[in-house]
């Protein structure tokens, strides 16, 4: 499936100077980018899942076009933040690297024939952290989907709330929760897909507020970061700790899906809920 023109343009800088090769961070194998893409960005040698860019993910899911929502909501620097670099510089360089204006892309598209509100977070932009723009875009997605009585599918990938926006970033947990709650209260259907990594404030808000919580195979998911826990307990954690499969065993998520089967699984999950909702009289209960 070709990438819609608008998405190609969003990727900007990245697509203009394409490197031919990628090195697998897990096994070290050198991989042709085009082969990797054809293989759902999974290492052909060791099965390592590369983290996907939001536009690539969208293209891999939508049947045809995608109508973006909230692109005008752009980041500012509400606190005048400076650490080793000023915050606006960091935003600018991530913008150039990723071709995205922020860490989430939201909009409407069809997935296997079901029109949905679709949100995809991008770990390559500020580690997928949630600041005011991510909060606004996610809230707007749920609000518009609610107006149109459409289901929402949201892909998370986040290191948590964005420190450079301080308390304002923290409050995005409240904002997004409210938007999800209002959406669900109307009997509408929300599927979250947790990809690597989903931690901190995103994990502790809309990621776990979905009707169905799907995780991509191998994804690290948790509240506290692995290093924080290791520092606290002063011992190394087992390799599978906080992995999707670990969470499945511990009852935290509904299912673990391998990337090549993700779209077909989503289409089936949409079919159950959307098909039902067409003839349903939702009772307004939230859970």
């Amino acid at each position, binding site marked *: 499936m070709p990438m*819609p023109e608008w998405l190609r343009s969003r990727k900007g800088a990245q697509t203009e100077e394409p490197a031919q090769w990628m090195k697998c961070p897990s096994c070290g194998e050198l991989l042709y980018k085009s082969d990797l893409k054809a293989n759902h960005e999974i290492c052909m040698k060791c099965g390592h899942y590369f983290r996907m860019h939001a536009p690539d993910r969208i293209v891999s899911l939508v049947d045809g*076009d995608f*109508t973006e*929502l909230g*692109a*005008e*909501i*752009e*980041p500012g*620097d509400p*606190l005048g*933040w*400076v*650490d*080793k670099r000023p915050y606006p510089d960091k935003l600018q360089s991530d913008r150039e690297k990723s071709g995205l204006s922020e860490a989430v892309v939201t909009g409407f598209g069809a997935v296997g024939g079901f029109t949905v509100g679709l949100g995809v977070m991008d770990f390559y932009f500020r580690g997928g952290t949630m600041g*005011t*723009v991510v*909060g*606004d875009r996610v*809230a*707007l997605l749920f609000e518009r989907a609610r107006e149109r009585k459409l289901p929402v599918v949201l892909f998370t990938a986040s290191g948590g*709330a964005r*420190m450079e926006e*301080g*308390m*304002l*970033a*923290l*409050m*995005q*947990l*409240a*904002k997004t*929760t*409210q*938007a999800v*709650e209002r959406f669900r*209260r109307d009997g509408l259907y929300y599927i979250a897909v947790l990809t690597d990594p989903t931690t901190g*404030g995103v*994990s*502790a*808000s*809309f*990621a*776990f*507020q979905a009707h169905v919580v799907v995780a991509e195979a191998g994804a690290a*998911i*948790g*509240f*506290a970061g692995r290093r*924080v*826990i290791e520092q*606290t307990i002063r011992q190394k954690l087992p390799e599978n*700790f*906080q992995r999707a499969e670990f*969470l499945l065993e*511990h009852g*935290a998520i509904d299912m673990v899906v391998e990337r090549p089967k993700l779209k077909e699984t989503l289409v089936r999950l949409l079919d159950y809920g959307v098909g039902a909702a067409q003839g349903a009289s939702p009772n307004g209960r*939230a*859970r």
Partner: protein
Amino acid sequence: MNPIVDREKGLIELGRRIEELKTLSATQNVDLSTQIAALEAEYAKIQQEIFGSLTPWQRVNMARHPKRPTAAEYIAKLDAFDELHGDRFFRDDPAVIAGFAKLRGRRVVVVGQQRGRDTKENVRVNFGMVTPEGYRKVRRLFELASHLGLPIVTFVDTKGADPGIGSEERAQSEAIASCLYALAESRVPSVSTIVGEGGSGGALALGLTDRIIMLQHSIYSVAGPEAAAAILFSDATKAPEAAASLRLTSDDAVLLGIADEVIGEPLGGAHRDKDATIELVLNAIERHLAELAPWTPERLQEARYRKYRQIGAWRARTAPSEQGPR
């Protein structure tokens, strides 16, 4: 050692000497009023120097002061309190104190995060870091309040949710997300007060309320200053700088449109006059509850929605709209 505790030491010693002179003056019937007045003037001067204007980092340490009144002390001053325990699933988490209460005669459900006042209590309450069980007790009480039509009053005081293995195994993220959800869907008035450290999502789980009150030297932060320094400045000793950058004081919270009211503390901090501080806080909560009492559930939910919805959107000058393929 808490730097504020260090700085207080000389002052406390001076205060003790003044008391001694006063006792001496009374019991020995000698006139020491000149000496006493001089020392009192010095005391006031030093106090003003130390506490007159605190840096953000000093305020962080004030928020963490070991003698600072804890949730239990606020709750003890309510007209009535009957503690309710447990998440119904796994465990009763002592880091959360919750139950029915009467505040200035008004029936409420109260929920507080309990920091320990000494080592023994800190061990018992896990240094105020709440586990999933604790958050599930909180969620249960929020839902109970909503069902019975009782307002929700919370006291926030935690450096963050418990980051242990067991907490991850038992879905800490889900537990916090469910508290947030329960507050979002609640149909009753709610007021949170940040009495000490409001650390990250683990604090906000009790804070998605209609009104947010902060004590003057309480903080509300997206991350601990130490963690932020380690990550952003690559140097954990830069916590004071990070504390300034994070804009985590009560003044910042007002400027950023988050806190609805700040309660002033006695010079030197809330622990210098616990009773007066607690009195002021309870009065403020009651004032907000009285204002919200006549609101319908729909009005409460709508206002709450707008309150949090408008935090952000920093560059968007025009109303957001959909954009088609371009």
